[in-house]
């Protein structure tokens, strides 16, 4: 038996453990956008965050992949921040449809949005 072939098989097995496994969701730049927004809100306003997330969404759709939990709510929150309440509402509704576990929290956000036009408000 060829020694080189053995070594190759072992090497491939070890590498296989490191190769990207298929993920449940298309993450795009979701976490990086959150990180960047906390690092420097001035360099990274809501409009810029929305543009990146919407671009990620198009890529995910073209690959027929789901957005992760919380993603639509995050986008909805950003739309609220720039005053686009219709889109904010739509994204929050999508979060609820995609993930019923979010119902209590999202209903609370929608309620606040209706009442005072503020997602985070009391």
């Amino acid at each position, binding site marked *: 038996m060829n020694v080189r072939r053995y070594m190759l098989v072992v090497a491939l097995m070890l590498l296989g453990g490191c190769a990207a496994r298929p993920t449940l969701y298309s993450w795009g730049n979701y976490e990086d956008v959150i990180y960047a927004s906390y690092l420097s809100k001035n360099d990274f306003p809501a409009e810029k965050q929305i543009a990146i997330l919407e671009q990620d969404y198009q890529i995910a759709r073209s690959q027929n992949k789901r957005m992760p*939990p919380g*993603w639509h709510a995050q986008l909805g929150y950003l739309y609220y921040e720039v005053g686009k309440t219709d889109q904010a509402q739509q994204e929050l509704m999508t979060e609820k449809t995609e993930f019923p576990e979010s119902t209590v929290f999202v209903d609370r*956000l929608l309620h606040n949005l209706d009442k005072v036009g503020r997602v985070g408000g009391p």
Partner: protein
Amino acid sequence: MNISSRAYAIVVLMLALTLSGCQTVKPYDYTNFHAHPPRSILVLPPLNDSTAIEGTYGYLSTVSRPVAEHGYYVFPVAVVDQFMKANGLPTAAEMHEAPLARMAAVTGADAVLFLELKQYDSKFVLLSSVTTVEVLAKLVDTRTGTLLWAGRGLAQQDSGSSSNPLASLIAAALSQVINKKTDRAHLVSRLANANLFDPDATGLPYGPYSPKYDRLP
């Protein structure tokens, strides 16, 4: 010893080394977890015991992905943070002290993940630096207050060993978004999370959205 049997010996040794890494760990007792298996997890900003203020959100922004990919609904961490701040809980410490019943009423979460950032820093030693991230995690059932799972994630990376394929992939992704010098500890956080959530006998069990759901950890 001919070349072939020496190759065998090397292969066996490598396998033994790989396996031994899995054997010494004491398995976690998942009795409480299986009594109250959660569907949804509320991740609060971590208590930050490290020396880096930026660690709070540098670390928080890396937690959604591993928990969601384990099969749980993860509430949007930044929206939750903003919401709590707007509702009388301006700091992570105050969020951690809020009554569980109130958290459950406000969010509907089955469980809360309490995180404590112990280390988040880079120490410079002569020509290189060592970056360390250490985090403690507690998953608590919101209805009963039962501790469902606890773990510790520690990762260290030497600035010299920049050949980690995972870290460089992440760095590439990050640099598309951020025009600043990337934060090494933020990248090492993902390795710490892998050590926290992924290990077979001590990690977070798979949740309902995972194809591996119900498989014992």
